[in-house]
């Protein structure tokens, strides 16, 4: 799969060189009700071929890790950490002298939140992420989301 993707990298590069403005990561946000007052917040990234985004646990000194911030809401308890579901690509990067932990193609981030049963509210937040391919990097960008919990 990765092979097929990279074979097309050249086409992608020449296309983006023309258009210059790049947006290789698309985010989709959704809510899944688990039970009474428990919800999963799904934050899914679809990543263009050849590009990567970086795990929350990417060590300091390498690329900037993806980070999630949930706005404070007294009706919502954010429970535990954001889970990462995807194919982790981890390698030691001599350029940075640290391990780089990245995702390609797609990755799902899931946060569990709790609200008092029967309460209707919303969860707001943002994801900050940067992306690179083999040739270049795009600076950290923010993507906001707002989802209703009911």
């Amino acid at each position, binding site marked *: *799969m990765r*092979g*097929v993707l990279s074979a*097309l*990298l050249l086409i992608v590069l020449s296309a983006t060189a023309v258009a210059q403005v790049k947006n290789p990561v*698309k985010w989709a946000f959704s809510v899944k009700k688990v039970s009474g007052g428990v919800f999963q917040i799904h934050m899914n990234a679809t990543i263009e071929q050849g590009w990567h985004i970086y795990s929350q646990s990417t060590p300091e000194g390498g690329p900037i890790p993806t980070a999630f911030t949930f706005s404070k809401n007294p009706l919502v308890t954010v429970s535990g950490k954001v889970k990462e579901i995807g194919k982790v690509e981890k390698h030691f990067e001599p350029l940075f002298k640290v391990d780089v932990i990245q995702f390609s193609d797609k990755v799902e981030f899931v946060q569990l939140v709790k609200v008092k049963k029967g309460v209707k509210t919303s969860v707001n937040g943002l994801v900050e992420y940067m992306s*690179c*391919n083999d040739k270049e990097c*795009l600076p950290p960008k923010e993507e906001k989301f707002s989802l209703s919990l009911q």
Partner: protein
Amino acid sequence: MRYKVMFPGMKSRCFAFLMMMSLAVMAQDQQAPTLAIGDKVPPLKYGTWLKGSPIKKFEKGRLYLFEFWATWCGPCIASMPHLSAFAKENKDIATVIAVNIWEKTGDQPYSSSLPKVQKFVKGMGDKMGFSVITDSKDEWMGNGWMKAAGQDGIPCTFMVKDSVIMWMGHPIELDSIVKVVNSGSYDVMAARKARIERDRKSDSAMAPFQKIYKEYETLVKEQKYAEAIQLLEAGMKEPNQFAGTFGFFKFQTMLEHINEDSAVAFAKEWQKSKPGYVGSAGAVIVNRPGLSRNTYLYGIELIKTLFGTGQPSSMVYNMLAKGYANMSDFAAAVENQEKSVSEAKLALKEGKFAGFITEDTIKEAEKELAEYKKKLGAKDN
């Protein structure tokens, strides 16, 4: 992104398609650049001159290369040893200045990034054999140079001669472009005109696509799939070169959100008109779990047409294996994945598809093979 994989054989369409995606995005996010090749260079405003001697003015006839980078940017760091060699070789005619931008400082003032950058530059030593500056506290270099010029990725080089921007681009092209610029026959205004004309042409060619694509994206987001498909159908009828692309979107939307059987029925009819996107449609099928056996067989049939079209056969076998694995035919998945691995090894030995088939991609293919074998064993027992 609504697509997974594009296959050549339809190269020009893919190219147009990808370009359109980028432009659609540009229309939403970005303002038109205000700085171009041929313009007078903006003022040089920096935070700290970390390495080398500060320049007082641009010497006549001398080239100044402003290389934009950040500590978190692997490709920027990777390009530095070569840039150092370039600076050394061309020290009589060119000055290289690495401009650190876009460091992450959160709520802190931008200048708080200085210690980190200083440490980095010190650690790099001779691998940064050129001047280094940091951005000013109002991030003038990142905004007034890079963003103003519509450059959103790093590394990126601005070449300045006699206070005029001669060229902007990826440093990989530096050696060849310096020769061109210094050959005496480089016409910066012609280069500017060509660049602007090219952007304008692609903009107007993409306009009909952009409009429909944006509406389509919104409808899918709102889960109004029937309306999205109606829109695509209208797009397919319009006299433009995007009918194939819209057809492909229609197929994908139907498969993912409406009904598998009607999606396949549509694809079969649609493919009769030779719209291209054969491999793409096949790839969407074989990569998607949970479809019916007949759908996978159709996807496999489409993928098989890619043999002999210039695609690495290892990749075609890999896709076939995926299709078979998804329909739980692990014997066929193993058989195809074995061919994928051996073809990839052969290609690597022969140096074909260099950079696309690597030790790493082979390792990954072997991992997939082991998985299929495991599942085959589990099924047999």
